[in-house]
């Protein structure tokens, strides 16, 4: 039983990344400790005090490296303060600045991964890894729901209030639409400011449903407009005659309440670039590192040993 305990201890110390010489020394000392306790008839009480092999290994690992506490504090600070701050700032910035922030965020995540991997207590790694993952997920949701939502190309979800605004806007443009059938520039002006969003917006009808598409730039919208103009003009013109139907029409899927939109936004994040940036890339990098360290490197080393 004592042998088993010591084997378990050795296993957990090795798992914690302790050097073999230090590990052997610690195991030998604990063996001697247990032996002394046995000879004094205190074996059971000593074993109770030591706790499980895993628990003892955790304490020994944590106390065996003087830099552990500093690493732990730094990793917690970077994981819970620096990375979330960067990942909230990144989507709020634009263009090159956003990219730089994102890369800085990745660098910080890599730095934290390195710090965490050097921590001697295995349980702490899991906790911090979970925190880092949670933070990444939180950053993704924040970015997608509150920042990215209004900027993406494609179909969008609208709340009832926004739909009412849209309907009012459509009514206002009724006259412009009628004129637009013969004069494109006037219609463009009406359409592109229809819902007052920063991006160019084009509205049309598809399969009986009102479809609103956003475009990154006005020129993109003009191009799309040029292609679909006849159909959109006729459909939109007939649609504004029957605005009461709008409530039951689908707008990029459906008209929803705000919580439902938030839910769908999170689901939509699955196709967003932020999913890749915040979640998949760090995970893939992590798996790659683990693979290189645990599988590939071990294989290479064992072959080198066999050859020598």
């Amino acid at each position: 039983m004592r042998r088993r305990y010591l084997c378990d201890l050795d296993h957990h110390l090795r798992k914690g990344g302790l050097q073999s010489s230090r590990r052997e020394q610690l195991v030998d000392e604990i063996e001697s400790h247990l032996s002394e306790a046995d000879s004094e008839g205190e074996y059971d009480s000593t074993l109770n005090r030591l706790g499980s092999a895993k628990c003892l290994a955790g304490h020994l690992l944590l106390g065996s490296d003087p830099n552990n506490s500093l690493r732990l504090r730094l990793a917690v600070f970077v994981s819970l303060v620096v990375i979330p701050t960067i990942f909230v700032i990144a989507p709020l910035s634009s263009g090159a600045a956003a990219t730089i922030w994102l890369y800085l965020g990745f660098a910080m995540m890599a730095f934290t991964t390195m710090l965490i991997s050097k921590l001697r207590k295995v349980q702490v790694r899991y906790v911090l890894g979970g925190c880092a993952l949670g933070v990444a997920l939180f950053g993704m949701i924040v970015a997608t729901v509150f920042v990215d939502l209004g900027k993406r190309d494609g179909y969008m979800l609208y709340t009832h209030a926004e739909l009412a605004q849209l309907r009012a806007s459509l009514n206002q443009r009724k006259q412009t639409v009628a004129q637009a059938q013969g004069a494109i520039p006037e219609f463009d002006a009406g359409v592109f400011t229809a819902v007052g969003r920063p991006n160019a917006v084009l509205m049309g009808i598809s399969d009986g449903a009102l479809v609103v598409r956003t475009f990154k730039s006005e020129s993109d919208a003009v191009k799309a407009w040029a292609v679909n103009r006849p159909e959109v003009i006729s459909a939109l013109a007939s649609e504004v005659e029957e605005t009461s139907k709008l409530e039951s029409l689908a707008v990029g899927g459906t008209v929803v309440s705000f919580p439902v939109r938030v839910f769908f936004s999170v689901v939509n994040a699955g196709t967003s670039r932020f999913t890749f940036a915040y979640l998949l890339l760090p995970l893939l990098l992590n798996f790659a590192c683990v693979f290189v360290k645990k599988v590939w490197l071990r294989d290479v080393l064992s072959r080198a040993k066999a050859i020598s």
Partner: protein
Amino acid sequence: MNKKTNLETLILAVLSAESLHGYEIAKAIRAKSENLLKPSEGQLYPALHKLEAEGHISAEWVVQEGKPNRKTYTITESGSAKLATNKQTWEKYIAGVGSVLSIKRETEGSHA
């Protein structure tokens, strides 16, 4: 002095009397403190290794017949100096706490 430093001081104090191995150190601390202080092995051995790395104690493996080898620790000169410093700090701390605790209500008499 924090908890970690306290344990190191206790180890140095115990070793200042005689050379001991890990189990005996833990036992001596328990016995001298009348079971008030019970350092866990998870704290004791890292503390011993830290003191050894800092040169405050030296260690030697003693081979035993029919039993596992044991590592015996001895205090060094630098360890004795550290013990003296820590002892002084601790005594000052105790004196300070004692003074605060001995404060009595001086105003009681004047109000009466």
